[in-house]
Every structure is written in structure tokens, then in C-alpha cells.
């Protein structure tokens, strides 16, 4: 049973809202539907529906009949005429539920990952927060953890530049294998697992560009304010900047290995054959990156077309192997 995709709230999510809305309403005394919706970041109508449901819910009581005293109650006039919620009678629950083992694990693993950020270098504060989460959990947290293996030395410097709104410059080895000195307005540091990226306004290209931190060197803070701000430019959703010079490359690989090239947004061509092999096309910024990708997936991925790409890969691998001759 897979999670339903999209924004649809599942019954379990709705139950969580109901169980957390009650203590919130108790603490608020009186709150407008609008404010509650904003607080929980849901649609106002959603809050109205839940409040109505809470107001007619309760416990079977001694009689098993759900008598009025066994039910929650609200000031209905205020609710229906003024969109205001005032809880006047409550039953059974009054405080926030504890976290589940999986909920606590998701937050704890997230915190472990964040400890790579220079802002979170206060290990003791993070450790005490994790301990607090564990105490507030009804089950043992799931055994999920993220190792702190990020060693991007430039994160603090770039993070500082983003915060102070200062330009930076650095040597960049592009995905095409070209070395260039770049001057940029740093806007945001993105990370995906152990890969770190800078989203920045590039003065050379005059557009928003994504730079891999492990392709940058000699990073310097410039004594000049940024010219574009994160608010005025659109940061593309995707981390990879396409270009008109990109080439389409046809690859063959087992369908079970597709996740290995997911970063390159492979487009399937036809169905898998009897051996489970599929053909996909990817967009490649020249062959500089492609030959590295394919050589790193030995025995898995094969370039089918264009022929030039196939030759480049063959020569790249042969040259690499030649270095070991006679060893």
C-alpha cells in the first residue's frame, strides 16, 4: 500500500489535525478560522469542517448514548456568524499527542543532516533537542540515522556571503570541463544528500546559474553588495541548467538501474525488452560529463547513439585502462 501522491490528506493526517486542533483551541480560548488556518497552514474551509466534526464528537459515556455532556461543544453563533471558534466544553483529551516513533525519527535524522550547516555547529544544542524529541515520543524512535559526512569547506564562507548580501568570486570547472573565474551574487545554498550547490546570479552569464561546490576553488568574498536579490529572480526548481547546446544521448540499461541516472531526468523510449533492458534519452552538456557518467557505471549503462558519444566513451575508458598496462 503506497502513499497516495499529491496534496490529498490521508485519514491518518486528518486524525492528526483533529487531535492537535483540540489542544490548540483550548489554549487559544477564542480564535478566528482565518488565524487557525494560517497557523496550521491549511485552507479555512478545512478548519471549519474539522471544528464542526470536533463539535459533534465525544465519548459514549456511562450510558453509551453520547449524551450532550459527553460531547465537545462550541459557541455555535460565534462560529456560524463570525467565523470565530470558542470551545466551551471538552472531553477526554486536552494536550498535544506525543510523536510516533517514525515522526521522531524523521525529525532526528533531519537534524543530524542539518548539523552539517555552520549555523548548527552547536552540537550540544542539537543533542539536547534530539533528547527532548525522544522523551516526547510514545514509541522507540525508528532506527533511521544520517551520518555527518559533509566536508564542503566553503559552506561557511558562502553562507556568510548569502547572509551579508556580498558578492563572491571563484574558479569554476564547468560541466563542460572549462576553467573560468566567476563573479556571482550568491542567493541560496542547496544540498541534496551529500552534494552541495550554490544558486547564484552569474555576472558573466547574466542569469541564474547553479554551481557545484566541489567544482569551485579559490573562493573569495568581494567587498561589493549583490546586484540581484533572491526575491527578484526566479530560482528554477531544477538544479541543472539546460542549454541549447545540450545533446540528446540514447542509453541502454536495465530498468532496475534507472534510479542510478535519475539526476539526468531520463526519458524512456519504448518498453523494456525481454532481458529487462530499457532505452532512455538524456540531455548532456557535451560529452565531458557523459563519458564520466558512463565510465562510472561500468557494466550497467551503454551509449547507443549518437555514434560520436559512443566513440568518446570508448576512447575515454581505453585511455584510462591503458595507464595500467604492464602494471
Amino acid at each position: 500500500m503506497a502513499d497516495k501522491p499529491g496534496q490529498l490528506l490521508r485519514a491518518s493526517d486528518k486524525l492528526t489535525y483533529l487531535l492537535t486542533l483540540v489542544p490548540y483551541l483550548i489554549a487559544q480560548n477564542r480564535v478566528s478560522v482565518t488565524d487557525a488556518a494560517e497557523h496550521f497552514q491549511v485552507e479555512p474551509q478545512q478548519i471549519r469542517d474539522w471544528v464542526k466534526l470536533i463539535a459533534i464528537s465525544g465519548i459514549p459515556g456511562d450510558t453509551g448514548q453520547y449524551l450532550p455532556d459527553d460531547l465537545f461543544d462550541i459557541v455555535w453563533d460565534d462560529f456560524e456568524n463570525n467565523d470565530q471558534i470558542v470551545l466551551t466544553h471538552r472531553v477526554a483529551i486536552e494536550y498535544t499527542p506525543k510523536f510516533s516513533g517514525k515522526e521522531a525519527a524523521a525529525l532526528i535524522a533531519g537534524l543530524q543532516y542539518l548539523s552539517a550547516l555552520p549555523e548548527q555547529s552547536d552540537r550540544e544544542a542539537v543533542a539536547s533537542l534530539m533528547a527532548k524529541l525522544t522523551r516526547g515520543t510514545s514509541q522507540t524512535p525508528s532506527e533511521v540515522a544520517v551520518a555527518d559526512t559533509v566536508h564542503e569547506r566553503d559552506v561557511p564562507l558562502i553562507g556568510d556571503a548569502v547572509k551579508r548580501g556580498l558578492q563572491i568570486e571563484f574558479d569554476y570547472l564547468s560541466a563542460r570541463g572549462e576553467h573560468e573565474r566567476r563573479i556571482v551574487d550568491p542567493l541560496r545554498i542547496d544540498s541534496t544528500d551529500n552534494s552541495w550547490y550554490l544558486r547564484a546570479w552569474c555576472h558573466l552569464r547574466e542569469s541564474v546559474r547553479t554551481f557545484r561546490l566541489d567544482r569551485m576553488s579559490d573562493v573569495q568574498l568581494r567587498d561589493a553588495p549583490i546586484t540581484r536579490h533572491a526575491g527578484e529572480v526566479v530560482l528554477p526548481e531544477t538544479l541543472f541548467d539546460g542549454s541549447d547546446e545540450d545533446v540528446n544521448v540514447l542509453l541502454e540499461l536495465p530498468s532496475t538501474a534507472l534510479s542510478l541516472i535519475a539526476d539526468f531526468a531520463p526519458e524512456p523510449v519504448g518498453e523494456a525488452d525481454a532481458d529487462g533492458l530499457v532505452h532512455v534519452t538524456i540531455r548532456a552538456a557535451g560529452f565531458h560529463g557523459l563519458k564520466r557518467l558512463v565510465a562510472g557505471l561500468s557494466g550497467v549503462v551503454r551509449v547507443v547513439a549518437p555514434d560520436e558519444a559512443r566513440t568518446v566513451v570508448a576512447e575515454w575508458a581505453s585511455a584510462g585502462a591503458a595507464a595500467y598496462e604492464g602494471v
Partner: protein
Amino acid sequence: MTTPAKKPPPPVEERLFSLVLALVATRIGLTKNEILQTVQGYSQRYVHSGDNENLERQFERDKDELRDLGVPLEVVDDHTGNNHDARYRISKDDYELPAGITFTPDEMTLLSLAAMVWKEGSLSADSRRAITKLRSLDLHPDEPIIGYAPQLRVRDSAFEPLQRAMDRYQVVSFDYVKPGATAPGRRTVEPLALVQHDGRWLLNGNDLEAGARRTFLLSRIVSPVRATGKSFPAPGSGHADRTIEELDALLRSNSAELRVTPGSDAQLRLSRRAEGTTADAESITVNYTDLALLADELAGYGPEVQVVAPDELQRAVRDRLLLVAEAHAEPGRPADLRGGATDG
């Protein structure tokens, strides 16, 4: 079988909500029959002196759902051994967040960011629910930490079934391709921990055939993860932290000596991983946890990197490159290994 045409059944969340309220309110607990007869959402469908098998199954599923959500459902047995006499309740102390647990605005900011790290999958749903709970404490996050968009991915389809099995102490089986091997082998495992190390998700667990604890790369699990129907005793805690410590120790104990071409991708990117190495060093030493994985990575650099030691890594990289060259040679023509071709 027909259900009596009373009212349409209320939405699922209403039934679950009523169940939680009823079980928190009761001191001595409610039997299954009492629940089905009186609690909103069940009572409408209850058939007096009739067949309630469907409703009973519904209750079993609801119990699982509540436990999955962390609602501490207790079974108070009256020792008659009769399942029908078991009483269910939710202890308020186990259910509610202790009054002493509060979070500062700074902590709330950090927790919101930690939740945002998960963009997809079940961990994302879990962290959203946790944040909803925190919101009921009337906490407003402080200024968001601007300038960062950190993200953890769970691309491996094995992750969710493994976590589910791990949380329920269920033995699983799957087909696994060992790094460096090509053919998969069946593994039967008691899952103990899921960790991300160096950007990769790994499973640690007891491999029942090997009779030992083993660590598996999720990306190399090539079949669906199947529950075997067997379970194992609760294994205690600390497995995730221990697994990371073991991987760290492994990383420190394995090192490779490499020669890299000046100004190349290999030099720039590999030198960052080598402690105490300058960016322009031509001879660098990197640590690794898995020789086959490092060999894959190094093969990608082609002639830009040459393995000096260990020999096993040298052979692994050369074999990979020969395989790639062969797979990409002209049809009908063997790879020309003496071409000495350079970057195209």
C-alpha cells in the same frame, strides 16, 4: 452479506477520532464488543445478534493504524485467555506530550527546517505530522534560516517497506547484487537500522543465512522487499548509531593512494575528500568504505586518475574501464586499447 441501510458510514478520520476519545476516557478499558456497539463510526454498522465479521476486521485495521501513528493503544488482558474479554485503553500519560517538554523559538525553527529536509516519501508525511503536533503547542517558528535549501532524498524503493518491516520486527527477503558482482542472490534479513552514509542509504541487519550482521546498499536491492511472515524479538536500540560508527571506522581503516592529473575534474573533486591535501596535489590519499563503489567512481575519471595502491583497487578500476571500452567498441571490432586516445 448485506449491511443494514442506516446512515452512510462516517469518514474514516471521524471513526478513528471517536475511537481515540473513547479509549482515552475509559479507565478500565473497553472490550472489542463494547467498542463496536457504542463507539461512533462502528455503532452505526453494528448488527445486534448478527454477523459483525467485517466490522471486527475494520477494528483490527484501525488498531494498526493508530499504533502506526504512535497512539499508545494498550491491551488490558483479564487473563482468561479469551480474546473477546481483552480490554483496550489509551493511557493519558503515554498519549500526551509531558508538560515539561517545551521548545524555544530557535528550536522550533530548527525543527521546521529538519522537517523540510524530507521532500518526498513516507518520511516527509511523518515529519509533516510531527510539525502539525508542534503547531498545536502554539509555537511560531522564529525567522526561518534563510539562504539554505537542504534536502535528503529517498530514491530507493526498498526504503519504505524496509522501514515498515523494521518498525514491526518482521523478517524480510530480497534479491541483492553485491558491489562488484553482477548476479543477484537472495537474502533473508532481520532489519535493524537504515542509515545514510556518504550520500547512500544502507540497511544493517541480521543476515539469517550468513548468521551474522551485514550492511546492504539499498541501491543494490533489485527485487521488491518481501515480508516472510516471520518476526523477531525487539532487538533493543542504538543500531542506527552503531551502524554509522562502524561505517566511519571502516572509512578510516581503508585508504587508497591515487595519482591525479593537474587541473582535472579528478584532482579538484577527489582532493576535497583527502584530509590535509591541497587542491593542487598530484598524489592524494582518499578513504573509502567499499572498494567496489570507489572503483566505480574512479573509473568515471578515466585517465585523469591512476590508482597506485592497493592492487585490488587498481585491478578493479582497470577491469571496469576495459568493460566500458569493450561495450562501446564498434560493433564487430574489439576495443583498441593501444589507441592512447585522450579527452575527446
